[in-house]
């Protein structure tokens, strides 16, 4: 067979017409994550008000204002960091990225304090009633995502501190910030369902 009309396999030319595979990959990941969270949110809503015995949400839950402020502002600082990275302002990037990590860690600390109070003072555990079951699993699923996000953020931060050149990794760091924004967006849903509607 003649290959008269053959074109050489040139990677950059190949990809010029197409989408960025990193972006497609992360969007796919976030899509499955949305589906995963929807199931836990559905379970929470399904079991709302179905606990035969207490403690009930209205008795023990308080709106976590400070933690929420921390987490949501961390999205802002993450975005500022990425903007800094794009302009190659590495000090600004490290500063904002570091603040993002601190804010995320503070959110986790607040969750820890809340859980300790629920367990020790109110006697609510995952096996107490269906409220405990759905509350700890939904908030815990979100918190575990925060932990994963924080681990990755810290990895980038430490590499930066040790003098690794982050500018060539800009694309990957931006994708990581997408994940962090996603974790924050999920919190808005969890917050609304658990602390506003469910209380």
């Amino acid at each position: 067979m003649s290959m008269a009309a053959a074109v050489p396999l040139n990677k950059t030319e190949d990809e010029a017409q197409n989408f960025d595979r990193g972006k497609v990959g992360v969007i796919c990941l976030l899509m499955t994550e949305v589906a995963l969270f929807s199931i836990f949110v559905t379970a929470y809503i399904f079991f709302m008000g179905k606990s035969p015995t207490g403690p009930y949400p209205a008795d023990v839950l308080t709106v976590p204002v400070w933690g929420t402020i921390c987490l949501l502002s961390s999205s802002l600082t993450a975005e500022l960091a990425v903007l800094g990275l794009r302009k190659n302002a590495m000090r600004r990037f490290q500063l904002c990225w570091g603040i993002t990590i601190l804010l995320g860690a503070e959110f986790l600390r607040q969750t820890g304090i809340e859980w300790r109070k629920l367990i020790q003072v109110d006697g609510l555990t995952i096996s107490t009633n269906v409220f405990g079951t759905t509350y700890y699993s939904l908030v815990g699923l979100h918190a575990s995502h925060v932990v994963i996000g924080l681990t990755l953020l810290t990895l980038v931060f430490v590499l930066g501190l040790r003098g690794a050149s982050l500018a060539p990794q800009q694309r990957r760091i931006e994708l990581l910030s997408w994940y962090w924004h996603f974790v924050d967006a999920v919190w808005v849903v969890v917050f609304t369902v658990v602390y506003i509607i469910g209380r």
Partner: protein
Amino acid sequence: MHGTTMVFFVGMPFIAGLANYLIPLMIGTRDMAFPRLNALGFWLTLFGGILLYSSYLAWAGTAGQGSAPDVGWFAYAPLTEKAFSPGTSTDFWILSIIMSSTGSTITAVNILATALCLRTKGMTLARMPLFVWMFCVVAFQILVAMPPLTAAQIMLLLDRFLGAHFFDTAASGSAVLWMHFFWLFGHPEVYILMIPGFACVTEIVPVFSRKPIFGRAAMIGASVSIGLISLGVWAHHMYTVGLPANANIFFATGTMLVGVPTGIKIFNWLATMWGGRIRFQTPMLFCIAFLFQFLIAGLTGIMLGVAPFDWQLGNSYFVVAHFHYTLIGGLLMTLFGAIYYWFPKATGRMLSETLGKWHFWLLLIGFHVTFDPLHFAGLLGMPRRIYTYPAGRGWEGFNYFSSWGVVIQAAAILIFVWNVVDSLVRGQKAGNDPWDGWTLEWATTSPPPEYNFAELPEVRSSRPLWDLKHPEDPDWKYEQSAAS
């Protein structure tokens, strides 16, 4: 164990394998978008399977008899709770499913990223092979339908190990919630298994009819609609639960609706064959058998989709016969067709046509002798999941035939295995393009080199190799509208 094995450790790996091998070849690239991630997906699936089967070596199951998972493939709660399934067999099941479904999800990410990001120069989405289009639909379904299963499995683990109450009916948990979550995965899953079969037929039928596929755009539209509608019909597996009448009507309507795009596809395949110079070689024979059998399977599916009919026959052998008709008569037949079609590409040698015809006819006869009678046994009231029954119910004859059918099918499979082994050693050399195909995989050597292509023909239509072989009458002259 049979259902779990067939769905998660036969069907899904086969589909992932087809996708990984063929998609890069069809779109003219060297490998999938994320090769390392892909390896992770493969090993997760493999070790998921090993984990499942290692349960045979573990502690006692539900009734203290044997240690293999004994809760069925849909594992209804509360049977799966610690109180009713002590021992570890159910935990083996949960963990192996979580592993393999994570593997499938990774494959899905890879399929979408590969198809969207690595197409060769000139291959627009409009010119992408329908095989790849359908796998994109499958990948999308996996991405949204696997998480409900994973979520439900996590909840079940929490129930079993931390004393949570999701499905614990004694503490206000809900058994029906498990059914919803499971079938929210389980129904799309049957399309995840079936659409790859459609994808193979869509490649094979045109080549063996010597005509381009009829209604290419309609084919894409139908695949996407099946992908979307099938996400909203899960509760037709749950009519016998006693859902509200409105819910039954909604899900029955959705089930009817899925029949429409599926019908469009069947008409398109028939219209492709119509007036074509059909070559009745083994891959095509399997596809033709698929068309007839899948039509019947679709009809029994529509019957079961009608709620009152299902109240009568839910959990009977009619259901068993229906889904074996789709998965054996539909999927397995197309996968065998696919093996005969692409084996020469993958190995460089043809499978024997004589043995292939023996394989085909014996499997076809064996299949019908096995599964046709089960419809009638089901209509006469034979329930699922029994290993014996009292004499005089009128089921004996049907089951007798069915058992003999299995012997015929086994003979067919033995011939197939012999065909593969023998052809690998002594098979006729295939050359690059034994079937006179039109998609890019036939442009490279058989077997393809590690990097797939040294050079590629220019892609200007959906049949680049036709253009190359027929420069006097290329397709791109007629596909201008789609070329932009």
